[in-house]
């Protein structure tokens, strides 16, 4: 099958296979990780009997493949879970219940996903504008003071941890100048305006860091394009520098920017832990770190699958964008 339909189908199959493989790996990694999961789940003050009971309830003593089989069953057909006092039905696609809270993993994810997506989408717009803009500017003014200042700034941006920028922003903007209230997550559906105002600082601090790598990437690949033969052609035809840089060199530099963006977007969905923690945003990253620390396997697997899904999705979108940006690319 050819064309866009074929591409979508191949990608969907590939995505499912990737996600399955990821889930197997997570199961195996947690299985071989040392430590008594039942003890951790039950808490430090549990008696050996209680720990044993928890282990049974969570099927921790079953062999790995049985537990994985249960997981798959839940995913496809749903599952009933006994929580000790009652039986809870978890309908398909069921990612299981949290060891810690007995909450359905899917609902945990669904409450946290909008937060992460809000953060990352907004930040992405900013980092693209800032990063690519800085890159173009430094290429256009290459060899001059502007370029050196911008190069220095991006290097500094690259080297600064997000919590430093975030803290400084918060202290200055919210504390000293009192331009904004200290950020607090507001749902987009509740109040779009407050949503944006509250996310402004998290967006800025995440974007400032990320934009540094975009600036460097844009600059490097534009300089590479500028050395190509077709740029020489347009110079030899009297086309001005503004059009050469802004039209021809930038277009040639888009592909690596698209690739980098897919990568950074995908990893920021589950990986913006520092930003989330700093600004108190209840996103995926925060929850994932917590779940890992208490060996809450169902939550970890669910989270990793969702994050993996976004990474794969971001890359598929990038491939489509490649083909739009460069007609020589054939989607396969």
């Amino acid at each position, binding site marked *: 099958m050819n064309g866009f339909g074929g591409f979508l189908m191949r990608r969907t199959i590939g995505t499912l296979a990737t996600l399955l493989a990821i889930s197997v790996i997570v199961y195996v990694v947690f299985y071989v990780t040392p430590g008594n999961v039942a003890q951790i789940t039950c808490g430090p003050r549990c008696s050996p009997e209680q720990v044993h009971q928890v282990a049974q309830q969570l099927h921790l003593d079953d062999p790995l493949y049985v537990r994985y089989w249960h997981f798959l069953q839940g995913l496809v057909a749903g599952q009933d879970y006994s929580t000790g006092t009652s039986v809870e039905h978890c309908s398909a696609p069921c990612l299981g219940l949290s060891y810690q809270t007995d909450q359905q993993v899917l609902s945990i994810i669904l409450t946290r996903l909008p937060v992460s997506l809000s953060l990352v989408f907004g930040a992405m717009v900013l980092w693209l504008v800032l990063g690519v803009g800085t890159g173009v500017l430094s290429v256009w003014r290459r060899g001059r003071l502007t370029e050196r200042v911008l190069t220095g700034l991006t290097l500094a941006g690259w080297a600064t941890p997000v919590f430093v920028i975030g803290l400084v922003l918060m202290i200055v903007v919210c504390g000293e100048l009192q331009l904004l209230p200290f950020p607090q997550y507001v749902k987009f559906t509740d109040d779009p305006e407050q949503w944006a105002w509250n996310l402004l600082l998290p967006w800025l601090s995440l974007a400032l860091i990320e934009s540094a790598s975009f600036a460097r990437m844009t600059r490097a690949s534009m300089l590479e394009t500028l050395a*190509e033969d*077709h740029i020489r*052609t*347009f110079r030899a*035809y*009297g086309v001005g520098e503004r059009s050469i840089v802004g039209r021809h060199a930038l277009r040639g530099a888009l592909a690596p920017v698209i690739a980098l963006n897919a990568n950074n977007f995908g990893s920021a969905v589950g990986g913006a832990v520092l930003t989330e923690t700093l600004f108190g945003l209840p996103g995926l990253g925060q929850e994932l770190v917590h779940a890992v620390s208490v060996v809450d396997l169902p939550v970890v697997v669910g989270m990793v699958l969702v994050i993996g899904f976004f990474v794969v999705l971001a890359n598929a979108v990038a491939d489509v964008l490649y083909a739009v940006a460069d007609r020589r690319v054939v989607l396969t």
Partner: protein
Amino acid sequence: MSLVRVTDLTVEFGGLRAVDGLSFTLERGAALALVGESGSGKSTVASALLGLHHGTGARVGGSIEVAGTDVQAASDGELRRLRGAKAAMVFQDPLSSLDPYYAIGDQIAEVYRVHTRGSRRAARARAVEVLDRVGIPDSPRRSRSRPHEFSGGMRQRALIAMALACEPELLIADEPTTALDVTVQAQILDLLHTLREETGMGLLLVTHDVGVAAESVDDVLVMRHGRVVEQGPVVGVLGAPAQPYTRELLSAVPRVDAVRAPSQVSDEVVLEASGLRREFGRGKRAVTAVDDVTLTVHRGETLGVVGESGSGKTTLGRMLVGLLEPTAGEVRHDGHARVGVNPAVQMVFQDPVSSLNPRRSVGESIADPLRARGERDEGRIRERVTELLERVGLEGAHYQRYPHEFSGGQRQRVGIARALAADPRVIVCDEPVSALDVTTQAQVVALLGELQRELGLALVFVAHDLAVVRQVSDRVAVMRRGRIIETGPADEVYDHPRDPYTRQLLAAVPALDPEAAARRRAARRELASA
């Protein structure tokens, strides 16, 4: 007033003087060729005419006047108004010279708008008009194509169309046909000729190919090491060269009508192929690169395989060596069917730069086939490599040197030494001299001939250059679209071609004699209209 007046031009890059005291003039409507080998500074001169060295760190001395603009004193703005509007340039590689991301019509329109400040619509219309003028069929539709959707010849036409967009007084063509097949080259040269007749623009042609110059210009300037060797009317300089270098250059140019002394061919068949077929891709996208090719090569003989790009000649060469498995048919060597590579059949590749590992010394590269055969004694390897290096005209002491320290011709000699290391009976040479200057080319061809006589080698010489193939071959096979369409003794095929395609190919080869060139151009027009 002359269209171009260059006086005492010097161009220096760092400490290197690329152009040294060059002076010439070009009158309005006239055509001048700068002819020289690589490194002679001819392209540097072409760039200097448009002030393209401004801001690159090159030091340009002397005076340059183009279409009334003093290029040396001109501001950036004045230079931009000169470039493309009064003097336009056509480059060698038409694929890399166009922006891959934009439609061809848009690129031409952009250039037009820079100089005329016309509307977008008018610029687009002008683009279609010039594309039509250079012979792009269905130009309104094709103007929306990207460069990769055009063939090599069409791309070069598109670049020429871009040059024509603003009706320049001077066209600078820097190796405009070097990347093209010979039939396409003839079409482009004919196009340039016609355009010049019609528009009266001056032409400055930069080329390494004396034949291309003879076809296209009135005056010629031979360059070497950045200096003028000889200049004057093309009939005089090429017909009766006064300088030894010009004579050397001319004698090195292979002639398509030269008869060659035959090799000592024995009856012994060393390599034969029957019903060879090779497909690439699957299903609807399958392409048959080689289709039902049968050939034999005798000991001591050279078989020339000639064809244009895409004719399947390289694929055939690779199958003969065993680098590619045929889809059907078989290759027999000394009467035995063969699978995979065989030390008795070696290959010399086209590009001596990329076919040697830049991170290993040439001695190590030559030693590879010896080691592959199981030789472990370092002393013997060293001895054999030294012998091979000397045999191909290099020095034994070159063992430790790296490819970048050698010139193109020397690198190709290393490639030949590497092929010889395995004591082959057959060497398949895939375009072994097409990346080399004519004088170097002549030396490498002479070396191959010597080795053949001495070692009784059979050679399969794959090339697109008809003259070179005639120079080296006893028998010739002409390939087109994967098939051998004509084969026979070289003299017969060249002097009495039977197939119309062979005739067309031979008619397209540039002649060294300008008068003959004019006759052949007329003949091509007839062939085209017939």
